[in-house]
């Protein structure tokens, strides 16, 4: 069984950043670095490819590099797969910043500890979707429950997103549709394979 995570519809995501702000508000990240980020890809539309955007936070990996590399055991994986970080255990050594290949943990210099997206575990426990998902204006960002089947057509690998360290992230993508973006995207996927 796979753990809880996110699904991102690359056709619907316009990279607007509402998810980033919703996360800031929900988790009190006012002055500090945001836990969620927007990665715009190919804004120049090079190689005839479309522009598209990733909204990414923590992927709550099956094999979390942050957890594996943490000397103070600040990270734990809940039964539902949510990878949580306990800042009372955190030494601020920032090893997880180095081991996580996705750049997820952020160092809060003023407090001397690392922090990251807890998948709004407090909201999940109250039966609510994560704040970023609830705020997404286009419905692009979805919560994937633990053990839920991946919808047909969804894919784990898309150009611009790799899992170089074998972390097995719980993030899947719905590829773009539409006659403009879809064939261009397919071409990028093809190019990526070669």
């Amino acid at each position: 069984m796979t753990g809880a995570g996110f699904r991102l519809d690359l056709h619907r995501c316009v990279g607007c950043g509402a998810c980033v702000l919703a996360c800031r508000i929900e988790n009190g990240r006012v002055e500090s670095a945001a836990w969620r980020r927007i990665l715009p890809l190919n804004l120049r539309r090079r190689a005839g490819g479309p522009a598209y955007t990733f909204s990414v936070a923590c992927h709550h990996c099956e094999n979390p590099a942050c957890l594996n590399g943490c000397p103070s055991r600040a990270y734990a994986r809940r039964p539902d797969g949510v990878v949580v970080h306990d800042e009372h255990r955190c030494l601020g050594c920032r090893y997880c910043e180095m081991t996580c290949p996705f750049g997820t943990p952020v160092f809060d210099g003023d407090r001397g500890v690392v922090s990251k997206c807890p998948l709004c575990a407090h909201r999940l426990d109250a039966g609510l979707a994560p704040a970023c998902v609830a705020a997404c204006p286009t419905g692009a960002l979805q919560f994937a429950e633990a053990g839920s089947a991946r919808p047909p057509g969804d894919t784990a690998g898309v150009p611009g997103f790799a899992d170089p360290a074998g972390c097995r992230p719980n993030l899947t993508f719905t590829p773009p549709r539409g006659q403009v973006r879809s064939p261009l995207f397919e071409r990028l996927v093809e190019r990526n394979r070669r």
Partner: protein
Amino acid sequence: MPAPRTIRTVCPRNCYCTCGMLVTVDESGRIIRIDGDPLNPATDGRVCLKGLSYARRQTAPDRLLTPLRRSRSGSGFEPVEWEDALSDIAARLDAVRATYGPSSVLYYEGSGSHGALGGLAMAFWHQFGGCTTTHGDLCWPAGLEATRLTYGANLHNHPRLTRESRFILVWGHNPAETNIHQWRLMLDAQERGAVIAVIDPRSTDTTDAADIHLQPRPGTDAALALGIANVIVEAGLHDEAFLRMHAQGFEAYRARLADYAVERAADITGLPPEAIRQLALAYARAKPALLVAGFGLQRHSRAGQAMRAAALLPALTGNVGVAGGGWQYANLASHCLRELPLPPAPRPVRTFPVSQVARHLETLDGPPVRAAWIERGNPGSQNPAAPRIRRALRALDLVVVVDQFMTPTAECADYVLPAKTLFEEEDLVTAYWHPYVQWRARVFDPPAGVKPESEIWRLLCERFGFDTRWFPTDRKAWLRDLLPEGQAHAIDRLPHEPLDLSGNGDIAFASRHFPTASGRVAFEAPDATARWGAAALPEYVPLDEGHAAPLASRFPLQLLSCKTRDRIHSQFGNLDWVRAVERPHVLDIHPDDAAARGIVDGGRVVVWNERGRLELAARVTPGIRPGVVHVLEGWCHDGDPDVNALVGEGRTDMNDGATFYECLVEVQRR
């Protein structure tokens, strides 16, 4: 300890969506949540990043919380007490009036925050003896007038009916950025099998997700629309039954179409004839088909005719008055509030077109403008010839700017008065996409140093000894009296739900009655000639500053300055939360145009014409049409391009709009 409370309110920005919002405030008065209002069926329980950013904006460190006066040294500002500020402002207004007359004061209001109370300024100016104001609009008036001439009213279907559409033609519009809730509905329709076609010289998030993307030369949309109509009529795909019953002047229009054979339309627009033909056939065959026109194709001097030409396509194909079809430009169903009660003006208030602030500040006579009061606007950044406006403002005897933050306009002021936020005064907010009137709640009292504009005007009236009975003592009662006849009771419901007070129903023109002179859709509109001297039949006229103009030999590139989802014009760009997710302000240029000028991606370039110049980084992209360059508008903080330095003070052929997208430039590497 009191529990957090959740208050229903509305975002009052100049934006299609006009989202209903639920704001949750904790016991210390801090915003802890902002959610979409699920009771607004159009925005459907979501807001955008700008709506969420109010949690930061309300208490942003750069918010103005006290009146500021220009320092005696002339540079910078110093805090001043309200009492002293208003006394000095009143004395100086009085002096200007005594010397030059009341019309020597310009009252300029922008669209920065919507609400009925904004109109109360005129209660002061009418008693002052008048003033000078602007008419027309920077944004959308040509399209409004073209629609009014054609259909008789600016109404369109309820947004949710977008889902019923089988073909969505998006024209000069980028809803993925500027009307994100409409975009969600369009994507839903696409998932249900609808085709999305987009006409835009640029590539955007909208065009990327489309099924068809045509990139015509800017300013040639009238020729494209008439070419499409020609194909439709030649193929016999026009709706003869609808036209017989509900069209006026169709035969004359049909004869006019002979001038717009598809090859000629292709020649003018720079599109392949086959692309125009295929788009026309696909649009005409799909039922129902929705045409969504943005503001982008009406920001030039021939805009009214372009919009008339495009607006007729839904009528031509019988797509009017049906769910999932129609002409969607602006829906003014919610604009049903009564006129504000105001004291009579002693004489007509002098006005000039809002696209020509610079020239009128510089040259207006009898009397000249000697003082300016500016609120909810930022003309020193957002209007054509912005640098000249800033220079002219600095030369006036008195400039007062009311704003929440310092802006390029406020930098030119003698006094900057801190404005309330949307959470600090109750009001009624109308929309131009969905039909709802919404209640803007007073979530907080304004901070100690801040006064709502309505209060500023009342205090000024007191200083001048004017009658203050026009100002509300009880805002709810005052707003109740603005509701349409027989709807006063709605004032008690509005804080609990958005209301459609129009009685129009979800489908515009469902009755097939059109409030034009003939009661029919005006293919031929004699009013266009009577009111604006424009041809009664839509026609393509080349732009004075278009791709084929003589000026193009020296300035061969057409500059567009479009909108981004990160801002509403120059608002929101000051916030760190927004800046962290916003896209860069660069010059988009096609690889062919870049190569011809030795411009490399990321390199600094100078964009210039006879009006001005600006310098910024280039982004070389095959997504933009060759011959077209693009810079985002919305100068908000240092480093943003002052793009309106390049833009001229033209006027649209109808209704006094600005011509932002009729702007030839040359670009060179720096």
